[in-house]
């Protein structure tokens, strides 16, 4: 029985965000969704630390990299999701502090793997 995680989903594409939230919630996790950098910052401020943050890079009011670099609250394990899959993009994500850069389209197995990693991180002493 895996523990329930606090997950922040930052995604401006409505369908994707909706599907991600419902999938995560179907697995019993507590999900907060944000559509922009600003909303994400607000969520972080309001809800405090998360166990996992899944964030798009290209957002309406900024980039996911800037979000992670500027936040003072720990977003937990941070994973980037993007349609940009060039080597330079991936390197930039890792530099910004993302543990992983998933190139879209991403399927459920990839999300499962990220969740498993987050659980492990949460359970780690």
């Amino acid at each position, binding site marked *: 029985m895996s523990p329930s995680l606090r997950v922040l989903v930052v995604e401006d594409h409505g369908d994707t965000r909706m599907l991600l939230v419902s999938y995560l919630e179907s697995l019993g996790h507590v999900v907060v969704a944000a559509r922009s950098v600003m909303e994400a910052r607000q969520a972080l401020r309001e809800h405090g630390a998360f166990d996992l943050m899944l964030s798009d890079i290209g957002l309406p009011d900024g980039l996911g990299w800037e979000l992670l670099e500027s936040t003072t609250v720990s977003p937990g394990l941070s994973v980037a999701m993007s349609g940009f899959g060039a080597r330079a993009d991936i390197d930039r994500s890792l530099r910004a502090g993302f543990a992983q850069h998933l190139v*879209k*389209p991403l399927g*459920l197995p990839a999300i499962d793997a990220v969740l498993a990693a987050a659980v492990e991180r949460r359970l780690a002493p």
Partner: protein
Amino acid sequence: VTDEVRPHQNPLDPDRSEVDLGEDAVPTRGYSLTPLVGLGGSAGSIQALQRFFDEAPVDAGVIYVVVIHLSPEHESNLAELLGHHTSMSVRQVTGSIKAEPDHVYVIPPNHSLSAIDGHLGLGPLHSPRGRRVAVDLFFRTLADSYGPHAVAVVLSGADGDGAIGIKRIKERGGLTIVQDPDEAEFPGMPRTAINTGMVDWILPVAEMPRRIQDYVEREPCLDAGGTSTAVASTQLPNPALDAAVEEVLAHVHTLTGRDFADYKRGTVMRRLARRMQVNNITELTEYLSYLRTHQGEAGALLQDLLISVTNFFRDSPAFAALEARIPDLFAGKGMHDTVRVWVPGCATGEEAFSIAMLLLEHARTLETPPQLCVFATDLDKDAIQVGRTGLYPATIQADVSEERLDRFFGREQGGYRIRREVREVVLFAVHDVLRDSPFSRLDLVSCRNLLIYLNPAAQHRALELFHFALRKDGLLFLGTSELVSDESNLFAPIDAVHRIYAARATARIGVPIMTGTTSLSIAARPVEGYTELPLSARSSRLAPARPVLSASEDLATPTWAELHSQLLERFGPPSLVVNPSQNIVHLSETAGHFLQHPAGEPTIQLLSAIHPGLRGALRTALFLAQEEGEGQSEPAPFQVDGTMQYVTIRVARADDLAPDFLLVSFLTSRAKEELQTVDTGSVSPVVQQLEHEVASLQGRMTRLNAQYEESTEALSASNEELQAVNEELRSATEELETSREELQSINEELTTVNQELKSNVEELGEANTDLHNLMSAGAIAIVFLDLNLRITRFTPSAVDLFRLIPADVGRPLSNFNHRLNYPELEQDAREVLAHGNQREREISSGDAGLMYLARWVPYRSIQGEIDGVVLTLIDISELSRARQELGRSHEQLTEALAQTEEARRAAEQALKVKDQFLAILSHELRTPLTPVVMATQMLSRQEELSPRSREWLALIERNVAMENGLINELLDLSRIAHGKLHLQLEPTSLHQVIRSAIETVVPDLTARDQKLTLELGAGNDLVLGDPARLQQVFANLLTNASRHSAKQASIEVRTSRSGPRIVAQVIDHGDGIAAEALEGIFEAFRQLQPGTPSHSGGLGLGLAITRAIVQEHGGRIEAESDGEGKGAAFRVELVLKEPTAA
């Protein structure tokens, strides 16, 4: 013979003079000593020494002494340096020590080394004029002390040290060896030594020790006995040996014309033994045949026998003593007189020059000095030649004072040359003292170290010769170990220690007859009887007259013996002495009473001079004396002082006092009765008449005889003098000949110089012609100006520009009205003259469009001084036009370049935009795909789906995946087009890559029920690659294979090693590729079936990307197919990371 007693310690002992003289020249003292090898060189000879000791046997029983020039400021580690090269003990000499065999002794810095009687001693080192003489000094002591047991080795060295020492070694019978100058690092010392002509062997260092050992071992077993004391000094008769020696000398005589019969046998034997030792021969007979068969050996033996060795001022104390006597030679000589000196056996002339220097030094002190003439003669032609040249090695500094070096020598390359002043005083001639006629009227004879080589008879003869040659009181100067026997009344010692003698004023004796080719013998031959007169008889004939002379003239107080004889003469009976020819030689005071000179020429013939009354009695007495030794006549009546007396004549032979001389005494008595005599009147007139005639005939004959003898003697004396004069003339002729040769050589030199000058002139002419042609050939205007800017030379092209004519040379350039727009012309010229720098200026000409480059260059003389200025005007009109055009082209080009650059930038910009567009496009395409994927997957996880729904979901998933693949391919292609396919290279197992790729295609294979055969045969599969990209390659190939094969078909994957590469093949048995399509299969947007892209589910980019990846890895990819429907094989080759590994 006692070796230790030197002759000079007892110079007056006449018995020693004949035996001991020779033993000093070739000392027997050295014969019992251990051989000593002296090695001399400069500091640079250490390598040679090390090589020597590498080879030197350690048990040869030889002492080695190393003398080299060391730095006076530093400690020497020479002993240590040599110690590494021999197992013998090597030590630096620190004080007087006894030299042991098989030891090596080395000289310490700042000292000189000497070897005396088996001991090595140290002395202070003095270097005249900074020259190094340590080796010379050591060799000299070595020669004197070790004699024939000395071996001197001269090694590499820069100066000439050792050369003089080597001469002494050779003179004393030692062995002299010199390093081959070709091998020596510094050949100066070896060369100088070789030039002395005193070197036995010239060898490479490595050969020396063996040869020395042979030489040393040879000595004790020599059969000639020359070195064995028994034979050499006691000269035991040995007929066989004597015969062999005679034969050798005869051979030398035949070959060289030199007769050594007069040389001491001991000396000759030693020299022979030395030659045998040098040539490694033990038997004299063997040597004789060697001598006969080897050309040059006779010459070498001759050299050894002649021993042309001497130094300047040899035995300096003796020379100092001589110097004190020099003024005597000048006594009473005026401007037109000549001081005449003879130096027989002068060798290479050192002694003659030494004496000449002394003479010149004294002559300088005189107001009207007499002429000087020194005859220098020797047997050895080569030595004489050296003397004539007058060039001596620099090491003579050891012997000649600095003052004399400056005054009498000129420094030259290779040594000191005697100055002309001295050279002109000395006349050299080849002359044999014992065979050729002597010189005459000499003031000094200096014959040093020649007599010692001669046997006693020859010595005696030589002294007689010198006495003949010297004027009265002339000086004889002998070597320190030579002396004049006291028995001789020819010379009186003046300085017995330094061997200076004066010729006694002995009544003139005849000169001995010479046998030499130039001598008096030829002239004297017809005079029969002359040569038969023994010399001793001739001298003794006159000798008795001398004491009387000195008694009456010189001695104020006669000795008792003389007083006695005078008293006897006065008070004894009257007497007279006659010689064997019965000529009266002496009368007592009163003997004249009994004589009566007959009419005619006065006579001293006794029988003629006797009073006729006593003649008969005298005859009787003489007859009796001849028969019985003593005779007495009957008393004869004789009128003495008016009274008749009876006279008895008694004749007695002088016997041993004066052989064949007679004493005739007259005993008078008044006692008539005692004298029963025959009355003179009773003699018959016939007898009286006959007697008278006989007496007169006898008298005439005697007179004639006497006259004849006198004239013969006078003649021979004139002859002698003429001969001596002739000899001198011959020397003068030789001198002239030498001068002529010198002149010839100077002439030769002048000719050569002239030749050279001529060729120089020709070259100069050619150069001038070249210059002229050069100036006309180039169409360049050149004007040469001097310091005042006057024209000195110009080229034809300058004529036009400055309107010049040839006569303008010498006029100032400013006078000319040139066509150039060049107001600064003169200013430029002066500036170049002042600063010596170049200057260039472009100027235009008055003629339209002409441009010139004016170049100013200073004219430098051979000494490099500025002596003018050269103006060159080069027509650059064309150049100038071309330059303008070039400028225009350049502008155009720059513009074109700018345009191109702009275009390129635009293109780049466009490309960038395209890339961004592609990136954004793919991003935008991917974004909507994400929810599709997720939704599909979430749906497929629904359990209540019908099978049909699941099929459709799978269909959606497949198409989404395909869509995604297309997007990726598009991006990849874009990257490949820009070469931006960045590989993350790392050591990668290709097999692992293939397995991963297979995993990704497993769903396809499963769906089509195809079978995959994997055959990974390559042992080494490690490549440097990007694993993700490589996986992409194989996934693509496998996907292709699967898609183009029928269901249930089989696909094979194989790897193998091919040299440094690994080969992976993906083989299928499907559609195959048509031959015409095979070529372009890797091009982008290629599809086997155009128009139906969906069939294979790709844009046709897969293979293009695949090839790009493989090529980016440095590998290659090929496709093979036998045709459509016949399957295909794709072959990928990659370089192994470690191709050598198995």
